[in-house]
């Protein structure tokens, strides 16, 4: 396999609050190849959106990317070096590395024309006082260095491409005159119009009705075929993942717990969280008599449980899970799982955990 389009290594992002630092993204690594759709799944609070905004360096105060590396082609979007001076605790201090792009380079060279982002709420991403067509045109004009006329033609062509009827007439309509599905199409047209190599889609279909979602998924499939665009698809919906993703990263509390090809994630599931998630969702294609929900709720990222972060809710948790922080282990071809079941740190010898006592806050780490 050739060099991946995007590599993310050990990415860490923190938010500073009154009550301490929250490690929203805590050591996330994954790759995106040219022309594939990579899923980023997890429940709310798993850190999916923070991961994507960290990649584009869009994290705002009080958040900050504090570690890791993101490379896009031969450019470094995020990078750190160890500084010569250590900080007060004696640990080597991290400073932004030299090859990391400046904010201006990010804005002018990467965002929009190389990597585009589509958000969940299409109404918030479109300015209500400008015409839809004008916004698409302007975006294309800026990012592709076209003349106004060329950009206009391209904009109309893109609007038609994404299935907007009467594209030429509707070019001069305002966002409120479009339905939710149509607005989402406009955003996709806008993103595509700049011919980016990678589109980050942050829950783009969550707010839409199923039939509209179906239309959008269909469209994305066609576009990947036609333009060979790569996608990072952020979602909480396992159905959507199964539908369009090639590879999947399952996130839980700021970490990736399992990553692999979509078929293996669903049919050769290696992490108990993924398994539990799949068992807890109702199926549209067959009648399930009993669902087994995951017990409890996701704890806050402020005080993540020691050891494996999922252990307080994990049906397979054993004593060792409270003590060992699991790394992503190779469990198949290009398939990794962060569960010590697959390692050699004494999971099988350890006693199963009684779940009544396992409250995340009270669990003590190894002493």
């Amino acid at each position, binding site marked *: 396999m050739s060099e991946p389009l995007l590599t993310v290594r050990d990415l860490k992002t923190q938010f500073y609050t009154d009550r301490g630092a929250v490690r929203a993204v805590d050591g996330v690594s994954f790759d995106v190849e040219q022309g594939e759709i990579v899923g980023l799944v997890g429940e709310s609070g798993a850190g999916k959106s923070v991961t994507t905004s960290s990649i584009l360096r869009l994290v705002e105060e009080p958040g900050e990317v504090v570690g890791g590396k993101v490379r896009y082609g031969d450019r470094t979007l995020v990078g750190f070096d160890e500084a010569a001076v250590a900080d007060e605790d004696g640990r080597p201090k991290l400073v932004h590395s030299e090859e990391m792009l400046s904010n201006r380079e990010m804005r002018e060279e990467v965002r929009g024309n190389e990597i585009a982002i589509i958000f969940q709420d299409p109404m918030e991403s479109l300015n209500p006082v400008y015409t839809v067509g004008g916004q698409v045109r302007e975006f294309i004009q800026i990012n592709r260095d076209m003349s106004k006329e060329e950009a206009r033609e391209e904009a109309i062509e893109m609007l038609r491409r994404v299935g907007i009827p009467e594209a030429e007439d509707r070019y001069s309509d305002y966002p409120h005159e479009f*339905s939710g599905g149509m607005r989402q199409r406009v955003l996709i047209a806008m993103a595509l119009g700049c011919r980016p190599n990678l589109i980050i889609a942050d829950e783009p279909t969550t707010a839409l009705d199923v039939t509209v979602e179906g*239309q959008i998924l269909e469209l994305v499939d066609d576009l990947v075929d036609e333009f060979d665009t790569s996608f990072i698809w952020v979602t909480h919906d396992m159905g959507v993942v199964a*539908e369009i993703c090639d590879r999947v990263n399952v996130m839980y509390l700021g970490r990736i717990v399992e990553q692999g090809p979509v078929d293996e994630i669903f049919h050769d599931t290696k992490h108990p969280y993924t398994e539990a998630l799949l068992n807890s969702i*109702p199926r549209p294609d067959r009648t399930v008599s*009993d669902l087994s*929900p995951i017990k409890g709720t996701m704890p806050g990222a402020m005080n993540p449980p020691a050891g494996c972060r999922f252990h307080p809710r994990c049906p397979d948790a054993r004593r060792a899970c409270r003590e060992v922080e699991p790394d992503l282990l190779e469990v198949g071809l290009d398939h990794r799982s962060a569960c010590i079941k697959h390692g050699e740190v004494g999971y099988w010898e350890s006693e199963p955990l009684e779940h009544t006592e396992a409250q995340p806050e009270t669990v003590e780490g190894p002493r």
Partner: protein
Amino acid sequence: MSQTTERLDEVETGEPILEVEGLTKYFQSDSGFLAGLFGSDDVKAVDDVSFELRRGETLALVGESGCGKSTLARAILQLIEPTAGSVRFKGVELTETGSRELRPLRRDMQMIFQDPQSSLNPRMKVGPIIEEPMKAHDMYDAAERRERAKELLERVELEREYYNRYPHEFSGGQRQRINLARAMSTDPELIVCDEPVSALDVSVQAQVLNTMRDLQEEFGFTYLMISHDLSVVRYIADRVAVMYLGHLAELAEKEELFENPGHPYTEALLGAIPVPDPRVANARGTLEGDVPSPINPPSGCRFRTRCPVLVQPRRADIDAHETSEEVDTATLSEYGMSDAEWERTLAFTRGVRRRTFALREGGLDEEETVSRSEVETVVEREFFDGTRPDGDPGRVVEEAIALLSEGAWGEAGDLLSTTFEETSICALERPRYTIEPQYGTGTHFAACHHHRE
């Protein structure tokens, strides 16, 4: 207080507890001070919907946003005043009961809301929130209510100690349980649930659904469940009603509806849900276009403008209905196209109406016209591919192409539409059919003209 409650009949499990007939709700699209002066169009949110709910069952009302399902639920509970129709709850006609007499009846019919954030008063503690319905109906004394509230907290799998906490201290799933406890506090028989789990994370959805199910088994609640999520519906419902643009498209037992859908809209919905299994080959079979405006909804079957299997018009149907557009159709002696011809003609009609294709690569300037043969080529390539209908329909298609070459999209669309769409039985008559179920024994209502004899 007791007078209206005494009128309530006792209803056995399996007997109808709620009968809805011809329920209709129109909103004024403009309700301002001066709206009356200039007149305003009605938004036909719910239009002549009938069904019944049997005691102890879960009936799901599904449909996409704007289909009128929430309006229907609120009209049933008289939270908004229906425009027409009747709602009988345990034999009492609710639409004719004044709001004062209605209040005591509300004890037996409660509601759960979608948004766990906004459905609990942020300035009230959990205890008083749960006690409020009991207080409103003068049930028990203060100490008993307190005890019952704590018991209810336990019932919905929360802690008694949460009595003194504020709603914001709870997660979405927990808040939805508090909602459930509040709805249960008056020991109701009917609980209307408006998207009770759609705002929750997937793993929490299952927890709440299971609790709702357990409580139903224990207390015999009847649920009217409004949802857009067919997966959830397949898990929790006994019967399912599908709504589209204010009409009931289909109503059947769950297994029958999912395995033997009798309405093309239901089929489209089912086809569109992503299945959480990459090995399930899923033809998304997506629908074209958007839901039309409820201010001026299509005649007949409301789904007809997007229906992939619109019934081909027949001379006999048109004659029987005396359409107003006879000028255009009178020239047609009979349609008689083959299925393939009809399908492509329909696609062409919709393509022109929505202008989904360009007459020439790169678009046209306003003034420019295209030669007729050029349009022929484009149309042939995009739509017909050698299967153009002949006879009368063929002539209409040719006429439309001529109009297109002059750039008259609107006229071409109107011509095609009045000839091929407006004359279909689907546009002339509202469909209502009962079909033979393949699964189970319940009645299967399907509002699609494909089921006519």
